[in-house]
């Protein structure tokens, strides 16, 4: 009789377009202690549900018809930096969520949120349960400036500031002090430009985005009117891209303020630059040096907010007010460039300059952290050492995304990077370097472990309840969504 039931469920499993209920029936059979038909399928576990995790999953599922992929995520909600990093006024960049949703809803993919790998379950336990484990948990730390005064009130990392306005639960209580006139952002990459833009963006643009209500209210009270975006090197070395620069140039009610001397020699160097750098530098030159036409002059005169790049400056100390409690300014060392192009180096001249400001945001890079002692970690470069995504000195362990190559690049870069890792995994399965002939228990054993430990995963269908609630709340106030700001609220909705 049990044999019959087994056969029935086995047949059902291979029906195309299988739904979740079939998986549950299947689980039911497994739980009763019989061997399941799917024990032969290769099972891959992915840690992290941002773009790297999802693109790796997408490629794996497509490349082999038998692979089953489980994605584990620490938060109850998926999508990583697409949800918490992409600026609220860049909704089109978030369209990629539709692709990820499709992957998550695929019959051979499962999402398990609210599971902290490294704490609730170890990487070793995952390796025992799965044929391959892909680490794609990104970079949750940040590079510190390493200067005195960094811990003063009024100094924040861009990672935390962005997390704050994007509703990352751990940044909810940041309460950045926006009561000063000038803010200094250190770093000139896209994140620095996002921060500057959000600080200066007219409220009626922001209020119809998915920026959190908390941040919106704080920005409504903000006294910040001037943002300086400071970099160690020169105009030709900025790390931002032209789209973000154009947005700053076109930001309503703002005007640019640059130092002409910073651009000495740049016009002459422009023609030899490769196309992306050339177009970017030309736009910067135009904004900084060109005398604007009448209409633009009028617009600039009326603008109430100012932004500008400052070049050849490195932070040496954050200066405090007389009570030593809050930021009152920043001391910057003046640099000169040695060499040119991408490899130019900033060299101290010995001179310094003090800039009055009440807000300092350091945007000098994210940094990956080790989450499990058993995983090799290069703390100098803050990545997991790997070749083509295969973690060195470990079989069955892979990495993709920023954890693999370091925290730079846009979604397209991460996509290619993840496809590459997935290809390595598939190659290893096909070539038997990874032995997938022996069955592995996959999520079944991990679910049992988590259950024992009192950890209850959030499934994708549970996330969809959170998604629906956030969308409803947003609709009520003219926003695409109003994000839940605490893990508790997310779990409450997920369990309904």
């Amino acid at each position, binding site marked *: 009789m049990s044999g019959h039931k087994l056969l029935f469920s086995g047949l059902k499993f291979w029906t*195309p*377009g299988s*739904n979740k209920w079939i998986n549950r029936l299947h689980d039911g059979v497994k739980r009763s202690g019989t061997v399941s038909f799917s024990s032969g399928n290769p099972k891959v576990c992915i840690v992290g549900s941002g773009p790297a995790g999802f693109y790796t999953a*997408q490629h794996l*599922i*497509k490349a082999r018809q038998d692979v089953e992929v489980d994605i584990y995520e620490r938060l109850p909600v998926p999508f990583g930096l697409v949800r918490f990093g992409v600026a609220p006024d*860049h909704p*089109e*960049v978030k*369209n*990629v969520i*539709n*692709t990820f*949703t*499709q*992957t998550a*809803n*695929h019959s051979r993919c499962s999402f398990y949120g609210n599971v902290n790998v490294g704490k609730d379950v170890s990487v070793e336990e995952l390796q025992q349960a799965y044929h391959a484990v892909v680490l794609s948990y990104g970079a949750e730390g940040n590079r510190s400036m390493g200067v005195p005064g960094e811990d003063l009130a009024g100094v924040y990392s861009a990672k935390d500031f962005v997390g704050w306005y994007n509703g990352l639960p751990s940044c909810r209580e940041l309460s950045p002090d926006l009561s000063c006139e000038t803010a200094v952002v250190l770093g000139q990459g896209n994140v620095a430009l996002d921060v500057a833009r959000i600080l200066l963006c007219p409220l009626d643009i922001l209020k119809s985005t998915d920026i959190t209500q908390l941040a919106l209210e704080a920005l409504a009270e903000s006294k910040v009117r001037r943002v300086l975006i400071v970099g160690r090197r020169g105009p030709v070395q900025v790390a931002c*891209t*032209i*789209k973000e620069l*154009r947005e700053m140039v076109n930001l309503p009610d703002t005007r640019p303020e640059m130092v002409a001397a910073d651009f000495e020699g740049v016009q002459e160097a422009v023609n030899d630059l*490769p*196309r*992306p750098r050339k*177009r*970017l530098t030309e736009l910067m030159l135009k904004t900084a040096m060109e005398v604007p036409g009448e209409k633009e002059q009028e617009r600039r005169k009326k603008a109430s907010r100012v932004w500008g790049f400052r070049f050849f400056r490195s932070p040496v100390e954050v200066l405090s007010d007389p009570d030593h409690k809050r930021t009152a300014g920043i001391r910057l060392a003046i640099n000169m460039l040695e060499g040119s192009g991408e490899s130019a180096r900033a060299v101290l001249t010995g001179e310094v300059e003090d800039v009055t400001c009440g807000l300092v945001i350091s945007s000098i890079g994210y940094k990956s952290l080790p989450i499990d002692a058993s995983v090799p970690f290069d703390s100098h*470069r803050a990545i997991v*050492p*790997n*070749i*083509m995504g295969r973690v060195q000195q470990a079989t069955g362990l892979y990495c993709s995304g920023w954890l*693999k*190559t*370091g925290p*730079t690049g*846009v*979604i*397209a*870069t991460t*996509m*290619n*990077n993840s*496809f*590459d890792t997935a*290809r390595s995994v598939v190659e290893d399965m096909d070539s038997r370097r990874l032995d997938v002939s022996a069955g592995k228990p996959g999520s079944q054993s991990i679910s049992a472990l988590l259950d024992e430990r009192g950890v209850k995963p959030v499934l994708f269908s549970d996330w*969809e309840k959170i*998604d*629906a609630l956030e*969308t409803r709340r947003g609709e009520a106030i003219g926003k695409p969504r109003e994000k839940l700001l605490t893990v508790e609220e997310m779990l409450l909705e997920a369990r309904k």
Partner: protein
Amino acid sequence: MAASAAVRSSMGLTLRLSRVIPDCSTCPFHRLKSCVGIVANSLRNRSFDNFQTINRHLQTSIGLYHSEEGTSGAEDSDDVVNVVYVDRSGKRIPIKAKVGDNVLYLAHKHGIELEGACEASLACSTCQVYVSPAHYDKLPEPDEREDDMLDMAPMLQENSRLGCQITLTPELEGMELTLPKVTRNFYVDGHVPKPH
């Protein structure tokens, strides 16, 4: 934003004309209520007048669904544009397409692995293609915003364009669209070689 909204609604029209939007009633996924498009649409509460990639599920190879679109009335020779996609492995895939077809969604329709992360809103570069030199000049000049996105594309070449911005016309007959081989090129130190 208005410009992109205009592009989006005209794309919707193009999709309807080229019959990329499917007739759901015959689809087994629709009948089993496991069509991702339906779930996604109902959650976002949008109509097909908005620009979206409803055929997206073809990409993750629940690939049974090609048949409906195969002969989309391409018998009328005035309307036919033959193009060839060259995928990342070098395989040539000739397609009998129609005037007005969008290069990105045409690829999706035929299971060719061209990603379109931002869904044709000029916010990414994942649909980058290399256009055959003879046809590159026949394309209209890229919008400044397309150029901005291309600047970020890995392995950018002189003949790079974004697939989502190319609409087929009769003079593009014989055009070849090669997918960039952005593979095996990520070194441990993050070095990315220049295009060649």
